[in-house]
């Protein structure tokens, strides 16, 4: 057997095992109700038959030789092999009656899906292999396309399918702006209608093709030929457009997407804070939820009108600074015992703090003070009232009146003339404000002497000390300042929810924040934002996938790191190491010893 054939067989079987897995863990059946193209193509079809195309594509493109016949042969073979494990499963269901007692998702619906609804499952299974073989050939054909066609087609296919998957989100955005009939002609109850699907696909392909075939260069030349003054004004226009865009965003997106933006904002805040500890100072903190929890609980204790709040509840704005300071104080106190620890010892100690907070929050011991399992209720939303609100109302109301013609708006006053940060579009402005503030602070610190000290410690702690840096103080400062942002996030979070329960302060939060700053690009401030969009925003949008969401999240984490280990938007200095000489000098003892 020659090398190439073995490669093709391997490719085909791997694709086959993946297909089999998709079936056995229930994804296919679950997604078979979810249309991409209404009443025609489901997500399950796409996954199932997509595997065959991919197998064919990979089988063909790994060949060195270019003869068409061999390519078709290998592609077709890979496609067919991709159906073989599934076929074996079908056969297995015939002999093993009780298979479902063990593999809960091997159900009749799966078998009928896999056998293309054939009465006779063996015939159906063989049919599946044939179909897979043909689709493998399609994959070969795709591989044969010149790159200049292939790329636009892939891109527009991805976008079109994405629109189909996200149809309910799109409907949410478009509903206020379109008549029901128009909407119904575009979307089915799930998925895009066939005609719009094709139109969109063709349109996007054309656009991408044009862009690639000259549009991009033309745009770039245009920009290059700007005079300095033009450049300056174009930059000014861009920035003001960006600002306007950010201001009207919530009304553009609607309530639900604003809510997702707020969730992203919460994680951006935490990410910016943790980025100080990990990205700048190299202190691997796995207990960031501690600061968040402190901020949230202090906010609840100060402003709640329940029995846990003070007799005269504070206003949100007065309580926020206290929350931030309290979080910083926690960061400071918890930094002291862990200062001498390095690397992973630090990680586990901070993880321990996070767990301690989590347990204490729900404990009976502290129930009289912070509510234990029943949490703290009746936390009022943040609001601006009185004179301040009046002044803002004079500015905001005319703008809103103007914008409302376009179904848009910005921060609004309610009927009493107060500004209440109660619903997501209003809260959005609070998050934007807080995020911009923290962005500003992060940037300032990043580009200052303090930031340099932290980076020096991250690179090599001993040498940093030899340069005259008081490393102890700098590390304590990093923990303290890093906590501030978490406290702020917690404070807004409590006011946003109106009630807090211990279940909001799990280890998963720390892990999520850590993941987003690394996926975004460690030490990079824009990376935090991109990371938060990728790891908080997208999973929210994927709520369609319900119980498979975390499975996809796991795959996405692995995939993103494999493709871009330096992060989605790395800092100027690519691929920064966390520990100076990582593995040899400052690392903790590492040998496998007796």
């Amino acid at each position, binding site marked *: 057997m020659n090398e190439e054939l073995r490669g093709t067989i391997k490719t085909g079987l791997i694709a086959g095992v993946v297909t089999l897995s998709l079936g*056995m*863990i229930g994804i296919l059946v679950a997604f078979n109700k979810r249309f991409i193209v209404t009443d025609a193509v489901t997500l399950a079809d796409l996954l199932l038959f997509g595997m065959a195309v991919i197998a064919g594509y990979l089988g063909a493109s790994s060949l060195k030789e270019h003869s068409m016949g061999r390519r078709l042969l290998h592609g077709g073979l890979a496609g067919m092999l991709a159906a073989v494990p599934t076929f074996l499963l079908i056969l297995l269901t015939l002999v093993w009656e009780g298979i479902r007692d*063990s*593999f*809960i*998702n091997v159900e009749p619906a799966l078998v009928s899906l896999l056998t293309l609804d054939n009465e006779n499952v063996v015939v159906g299974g063989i049919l599946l292999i044939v179909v897979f073989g043909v689709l493998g050939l399609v994959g070969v054909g795709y591989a044969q396309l010149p790159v200049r066609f292939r790329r636009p087609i892939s891109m527009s296919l991805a976008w079109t399918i994405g629109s189909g998957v996200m149809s309910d989100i799109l409907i949410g955005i478009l509903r206020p702006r379109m008549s029901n009939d128009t909407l119904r002609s575009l979307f089915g109850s799930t998925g895009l209608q066939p005609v719009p699907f094709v139109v969109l696909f063709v349109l996007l392909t054309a656009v991408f093709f044009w862009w690639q075939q000259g549009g991009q260069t033309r745009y770039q030349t245009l920009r290059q030929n700007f005079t300095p003054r033009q450049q300056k004004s174009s930059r000014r226009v861009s920035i003001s457009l960006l600002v306007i865009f950010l201001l009207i965003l919530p009304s553009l997106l609607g309530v639900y997407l604003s809510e997702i933006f707020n969730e992203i904002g919460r994680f951006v805040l935490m990410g910016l804070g943790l980025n100080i500890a*990990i990205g700048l100072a190299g202190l*691997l903190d796995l207990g960031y939820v501690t600061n968040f929890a402190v901020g949230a609980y202090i906010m609840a204790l100060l402003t709640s009108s329940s029995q846990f709040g003070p007799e005269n509840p504070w206003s949100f704005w007065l309580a926020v600074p206290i929350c931030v300071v309290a979080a910083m104080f926690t960061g400071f106190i918890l930094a*002291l*015992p*862990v*200062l001498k620890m*390095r690397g*992973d*010892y630090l990680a*586990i*100690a901070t*993880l*321990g*703090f996070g*767990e*301690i907070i989590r*347990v*204490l929050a*729900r*404990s*009976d*011991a502290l*129930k009289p003070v912070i509510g234990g399992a029943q949490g703290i209720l009746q936390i009022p939303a943040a609001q601006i009232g009185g004179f301040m609100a009046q002044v803002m109302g004079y500015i905001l109301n005319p703008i809103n009146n103007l914008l409302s013609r376009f179904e848009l708006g910005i921060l609004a006053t309610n009927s009493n003339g107060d500004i209440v940060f109660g619903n997501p579009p209003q809260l959005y402005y609070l998050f934007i404000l807080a995020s911009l503030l923290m962005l500003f602070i992060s940037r300032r610190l990043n580009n200052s002497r303090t930031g340099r000290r932290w980076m020096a410690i991250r690179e090599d702690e*001993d040498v940093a000390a030899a340069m005259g840096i008081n490393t*102890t103080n700098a590390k304590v400062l990093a923990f303290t300042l890093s906590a501030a942002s978490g406290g702020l996030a917690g404070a807004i979070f409590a006011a946003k929810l109106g009630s807090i329960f211990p279940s909001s302060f799990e280890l998963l939060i720390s892990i999520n924040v*850590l*993941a987003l700053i*690394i996926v975004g690009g460690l030490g990079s401030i824009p990376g935090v934002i991109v990371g938060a969009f990728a790891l908080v925003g997208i999973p929210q949008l994927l709520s369609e996938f319900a*119980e*498979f969401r*975390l*499975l996809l*999240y*796991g795959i996405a*984490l*692995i995939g993103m*790191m*494999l493709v871009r*280990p*330096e992060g989605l938007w790395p800092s100027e200095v690519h*691929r920064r190491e*966390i*520990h100076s000489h*990582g*593995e040899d*000098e*400052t690392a*903790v*003892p*590492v*040998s*496998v*010893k*007796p």
Partner: protein
Amino acid sequence: MRRFNYIDLVLWLFRIGIIGVVLWGMTGKFILGIGNDYTISDWLDFFVSGLSQGSLYALIALGYTMVYGVLFMINFAHGEFFMAGAMTSTVLVALPLENAGYVERFPWLSLLAIFLSAVLTSVLVAVLTERIAYRPLRNAPRLVPLITAIGASFFWQYYFRGLFGSSLLPFPEFPMFDGKIAFWGLDFQKADIAVILTSLVVMFGLQQFVQRTKTGRAIRAVAENKDAATLMGIDVNRTITITFIVGASMAGVAGVLYSIVFRQLNFVMGFIPGIKAFTAAVLGGIGSIPGAALGGLFLGIIEAIGPPLFLEGLGVAGSHQLKDVIAFTMLVLVLIFRPQGIIGERLAEKKA
């Protein structure tokens, strides 16, 4: 010789504070008699159940520590290897065997089959994880594999949830682990004793393997210095895979032992033991095999005995709920006294 600064002051206060709380709690317990009145046999029960739980932590911690030793990465997915072995062997081997009546007729053979299938699954999952999620990132910044490990952890949890469902699975009752056994007039759970003994045997075997065999030496060489090991003709990738295999086997064994003691499983069962085992590995001194064993036992025992011993005497409500607080406080306390863990290698002050 160094001057005393505010940090040292705080650390001393912290140490004195914790020791004070502990002493106060014990005073309350034994002298003032606050809380329940325990007999010697009760205390022994706390101790033995902690020891049994700790043995499981230790077994899982071994895998953590070995992988850390060669790759310097926290393998967050290790708890999932443990879960994979336990779930698969239960669903595909243990329950069918029980239904067919084999568990009662050939308990030892059935047990052997269960152990084998668990180890096999754990190893398969571990090798796949290493191959796909870790190996391509061998030269990436250190935190990147940590993220893929977290991703792998999510993936495997929900993969096995998809395969076997999310309900709580019962594990068959084995006659030889049922009931109690008496030593020196005191009763012990047979299952606890079995777990402790098996763990000891497995850990001893591992120690011998790492010390005595050629592969063991290769693992140690790779842990010491990968480049040098390559020069010495050691296949580093292969050695790392073997390390994963050995670590995952321990996890597989631990998975079955866990099933024997607690007799119930579900797809999230790996997460908490995973975190605890990681803690144990660090507590003992990460990278050290006896350290992992010691750390695991310490953690198990302190979790069991801590609440009644330290907290009840203080009159704290719901003291058993706070066992994690005790465990992690002790961890921090230990790391303050010994930043390198209980038997971690001491860094010769600072390296210049």
